């Protein structure tokens, strides 16, 4: 008789970032089905699902509800950093663990969260290191108006300064806002070398469509002259972006080969999260935070993302860093580095190593 273990699933089924949410949920649900069908695990995972409907205020209460009404102690969920930060007090109170399968802005290492997607040294830093020598160091920074955009652009300002470039503009849109005409006008006026896109969901799609129109009028804004670069854009959103994404760049731990096991890195990361949970619980169905922490320190996990190590101190995953260029409905791999250890606080960031020898500056 298989031991039944409940596991929380906390993804929104509607709202402006639904495509990402759906991808994560699909990955988690597929992994649960695969674990249950696999005799080697000897456990049956039972999903306990709640839908916060993209309302940041509902994540904490629904997470609490999972802990109160079920025996689940592990929750796979949250897309925005805002919702992750909202659930942390609940996790601390209940002794639960959140498996977070999305890229985030770094500078956090809560022992109740396992960070299974990229942090800045695994996305923004290598992406900028790739872009600056090829396109130039002057950037225009965009973001949705919440913590992901603010913090990503803060790090980007420092990176651009270290690379000897200038921030030509920094603009934020409310989540869900699709009026991008002013952004486009400012970009046309300032003529940056690249645009860092931290807009999410529908705002991002509207921007990319308008930027393509701009490129149609002025070649200086074509993707091979002034690319839009993102740290969270995956295959899951390509259908919503269509032709306007072509040639622009993104970075992530996984881009789907063809034929693909997973449609995107969000799906792959959520799948890998459930695999690691199942792996530890199959050996010890009563494993608590201490046993998980011990497993992170001692072992590597074989997942569909490849072999994964989880840093026991920061609970961030060691991941491949892949830079991809949008082609027809998929990403072609531009560069790949395997097993990049996490550095969520950028404590090991070295400007000289990232951007080559520092340029001489006029001292005033």
């Amino acid at each position: 008789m298989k031991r039944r273990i409940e596991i929380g699933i906390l993804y929104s089924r509607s709202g402006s970032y639904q495509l990402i949410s759906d991808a994560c949920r699909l990955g988690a649900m597929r992994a649960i089905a695969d674990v249950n069908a696999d005799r080697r695990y000897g456990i049956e995972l039972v999903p306990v699902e709640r839908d916060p409907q993209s309302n940041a205020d509902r994540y904490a209460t629904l997470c609490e509800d999972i802990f109160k009404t079920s025996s689940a102690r592990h929750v796979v969920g949250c897309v925005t950093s805002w919702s992750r930060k909202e659930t942390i007090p609940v996790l601390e109170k209940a002794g639960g663990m959140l498996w977070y399968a999305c890229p985030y802005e770094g500078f956090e290492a809560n022992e109740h969260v396992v960070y299974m997607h990229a942090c800045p040294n695994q996305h923004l830093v290598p992406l900028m290191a790739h872009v600056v020598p090829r396109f130039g160091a002057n950037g225009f920074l965009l973001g949705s108006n919440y913590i992901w955009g603010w913090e990503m652009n803060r790090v980007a300002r420092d990176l651009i300064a270290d690379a000897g470039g200038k921030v030509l503009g920094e603009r934020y849109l409310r989540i869900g806002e699709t009026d991008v005409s002013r952004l486009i006008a400012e970009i046309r006026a300032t003529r940056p070398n690249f645009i860092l896109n931290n807009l999410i969901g529908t705002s991002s799609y509207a921007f990319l469509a308008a930027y393509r129109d701009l490129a149609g009028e002025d070649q200086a804004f074509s993707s091979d002259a002034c690319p839009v670069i993102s740290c969270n854009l995956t295959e899951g959103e390509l259908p919503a972006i269509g032709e306007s994404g072509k040639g622009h760049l993104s970075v992530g731990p996984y881009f789907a080969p063809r034929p693909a096991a997973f449609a995107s890195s969000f799906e792959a990361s959520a799948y890998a999260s459930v695999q690691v949970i199942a792996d530890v619980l199959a050996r010890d169905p009563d494993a608590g935070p201490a046993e998980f922490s011990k497993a992170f320190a001692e072992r590597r996990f074989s997942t569909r993302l490849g072999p994964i190590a989880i840093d026991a101190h920061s609970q961030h995953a060691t991941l491949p860093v892949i830079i991809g260029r949008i082609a027809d409905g998929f990403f072609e791999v531009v560069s790949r580095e395997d097993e990049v250890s996490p550095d969520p606080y950028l404590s090991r960031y070295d400007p000289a190593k990232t951007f080559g020898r520092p340029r001489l500056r006029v001292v005033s």
Partner: protein
Amino acid sequence: MTRPPRIPNLGGASAFILHRPHPTVQAITRQLSAIGLVTQDCWPELPPEALAADFVFFDADLGFDEQFPWKPGEAPMPLVALIGSEAPGRIEWALSHKADAQLLKPVGNAGVYSALLIARQSFEARKHLASEIASLRQRVAERQTIVRAVAALSKGTDDGRAYAQLRSLAMSWQISVEDAARRIVAMTDEEGGDDQSHRA
């Protein structure tokens, strides 16, 4: 204007935690390791290596002066006080050591990163101010020397020209006005204090 570096490079920095063995030490160690620091805990004394530490966290509840290899308030690195009891006497003692930041016990899952950044910034600001004050004090203390040097150069005639001469001497010797004055006074003294003129 120079822009301060904003990605704080804490990788490989060392932190000593002066606290008796306690879950508080584990909570701080976990956060410090996640950020990328190398930690060492100790009690009841700071070992000699602590002099080279980048940060020291110390217990304000049970701490006492003899634990530190420096005088109160003269730590050569940023200090973070770990405060459990808010007894006024204990806070007063922590203040006497000029803690640059504080963490309230029990320490949970967060707080160490902001304590590090705040402690480092206020330590740097304090050090900068202290060295500026020391150099100003030194210059103020040289007032008399300057008066004597100007008197020696002017020989009782034109003070304004003598002062201008002192400044141009300082410039050509590439030292401060105060140092130049001291040099002139020393030369005058060597010459027996008589009023033979000194020509540079």
